[in-house]
C-alpha cells in the first residue's frame, strides 16, 4: 500500500546556515496517528512545514503519491490540513464562518458550497454556535476548535497538529482528544504532552538535533528518552522536603 507520506533523506538548513534537518526518513500510512517528540528546536515543526511545501529542503517528500513540488503545491495543501501552534495566526478572517470557509474558497468552490462545507466542519469541531462570532471573542480552546474546523472544511486526508494543547486547560484538552479521536484522517501530532499523545497515537518518532533518531510505540519512545514529567515532579518533591 502506498504510504500517505513518504520522506526520504530530507535535509534542510536555514538561511543563517543552521542545519535544521539531517537525513530524515519517515512514512505515514492511512489511518495512522503518529506523535512527534523532541526537544525545543530539534526540528519537529521544521519537518512538518516541509510536508506541504512551506519550507523546501533537499531530499524526497511525497504526499498521497504526489512529490512536493511547485506544480503540486495546491493539491498537496488540500490533502494536508495543518493546525498551527498559535491559533491566532490561523484565524485571520473577520468572522469564524468566513475563516473556516477560507480554505474551501481557495480550493475553487463557490461561496454557497464553501459555506456549506464550513458549517459541516464547524459542527465536526463542535462549534456551530460560534459561526458569526469574531475570532478574538473566543477562548483559547474555541480558537483551537475553529482552527481545526478551518482545515477540516478542506477535507484533507492528513491532519498535522503542531503543539495542539498549548494554552488549553485540561477540560479543553480532553475535548480536543474526543474530537480528534472521531476524525478518520491520518494524524501527525507535534507535542511535548505525552499523555495527550498516548491517548491518540500508537506510534511515535523522536527528533534530536534535526535527526529522526527513533521510531516505535509511544510508551517505548517515552521510556527510552525519559520523555515524561515525573523526574521533574520528583525533583520538586525533593526540593520541598529539603526546604521545609
Amino acid at each position, binding site marked *: 500500500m502506498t504510504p500517505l507520506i513518504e520522506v526520504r533523506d530530507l535535509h534542510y538548513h536555514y538561511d543563517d546556515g543552521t542545519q535544521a534537518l539531517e537525513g530524515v526518513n519517515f512514512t505515514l500510512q492511512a489511518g495512522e496517528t503518529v506523535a512527534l517528540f523532541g526537544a525545543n528546536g530539534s526540528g519537529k515543526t521544521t519537518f512538518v512545514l516541509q510536508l506541504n511545501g*512551506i519550507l523546501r529542503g533537499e531530499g524526497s517528500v511525497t504526499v498521497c503519491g504526489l512529490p512536493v513540488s511547485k506544480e503540486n503545491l495546491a493539491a498537496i*495543501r488540500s490533502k494536508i490540513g495543518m493546525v498551527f501552534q498559535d491559533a491566532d*495566526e490561523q484565524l*485571520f478572517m*473577520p468572522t469564524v464562518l468566513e475563516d473556516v470557509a*477560507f*480554505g474551501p474558497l481557495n480550493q475553487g468552490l463557490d461561496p454557497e458550497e464553501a459555506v456549506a462545507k464550513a458549517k459541516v466542519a464547524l459542527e465536526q469541531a463542535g462549534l456551530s454556535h460560534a459561526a458569526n462570532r469574531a*475570532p*478574538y471573542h473566543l477562548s483559547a480552546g474555541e480558537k483551537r476548535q475553529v482552527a481545526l474546523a478551518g482545515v477540516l472544511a478542506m477535507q484533507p486526508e492528513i491532519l498535522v497538529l503542531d503543539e495542539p494543547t498549548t494554552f488549553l486547560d485540561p477540560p479543553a484538552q480532553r475535548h480536543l482528544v474526543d474530537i480528534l479521536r472521531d476524525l478518520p484522517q491520518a494524524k501527525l501530532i507535534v507535542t511535548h504532552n505525552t499523555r495527550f499523545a498516548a491517548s491518540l497515537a500508537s506510534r511515535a518518532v523522536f527528533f534530536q538535533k534535526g535527526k529522526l533518531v527513533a521510531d516505535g510505540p509511544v510508551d517505548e519512545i517515552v521510556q527510552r528518552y525519559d520523555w515524561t514529567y515525573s523526574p521533574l515532579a520528583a525533583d520538586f518533591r525533593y526540593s520541598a522536603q529539603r526546604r521545609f
Partner: protein
Amino acid sequence: MHHVLLDRWSQGESPLHHRDPRAKIPVLALFLVALAITPVRDYLAIGVEAALLLTGILVSGLPFFGILLRAMAVLPFSVTFGLMSWIAGEPERAIALVAKSYLSTLAVLLIVGTTPLPRLLAGMEALGAPRLLVLVAQFLYRYLFVISEQAQHMRLAASCRQGPVDHHRPRFRAAAGALAVLFARSYLRAEGIHRAMMARAFTGRFLALDSLRFDFRDGLFLAGLTVFLGLVLTL
C-alpha cells in the same frame, strides 16, 4: 478578552444597523460633503444637519450621551484651529469649524457604531475602495487586539520587575525596548499568518463570502437622505 465599544455597539438590531453598508457609506459621504459646504452663517442648515444626526442616534439605540461624549475626541484639534481663526478675527468661522468637525465625527461614529467592521469593509470594497486598502484595514482590525494584548502582557511583566525606584528615565527606556520587541514580534507574527494562509491553499487573491444584501429599504434610505440633504442645502 477585549470588548471594543464600537464593536459591541455595531452588533445592535436597530433599523439603522440593518441598512446595507452600500447605502450607509454614500449617505455618510453626502452628509460630510453637505456639512462641509454649508455656509458658515447658515445656522439653520447646520441645525437641521445636527438634528438629523441626533435623530439617527435615537433611531440607532446607541447610548446617546456615550456617543456625544466620544465624538468630543476631535475637539482638542478643532478647538486649536478654531482659536487660531478666532484670533485672526473670524469668530463665526471659528465656531462653525468646531461645530462642523464635531458633527462630522459624530456622523462617522454613528455609521461605524451601527455597522460591524467586516460589513463596513465589504461595503467599501463593493463601492470600489482598493482591495489592498480594505485588506490592510481588515488585518489591522483583526490583529490590533492581539498586539495590544501582547503589549499589556509586556507592560505587566515590566511592572513586576520595576522595583521600588520610580524614575521616568528607566521607564522610558523599558517602554522603548518593549516597543522594539513588539515590532519584531509583529513581524514574526506576520510571517506566521502568511504560512497559515499558504497552508490553506492561499494563492495570493482573497476570496470573500458575499454577505451583503441591498433591498428596497436600503434604496429608500439612500434616496430619501440624498434628497433631504439636497433640500437642506438649497432651501
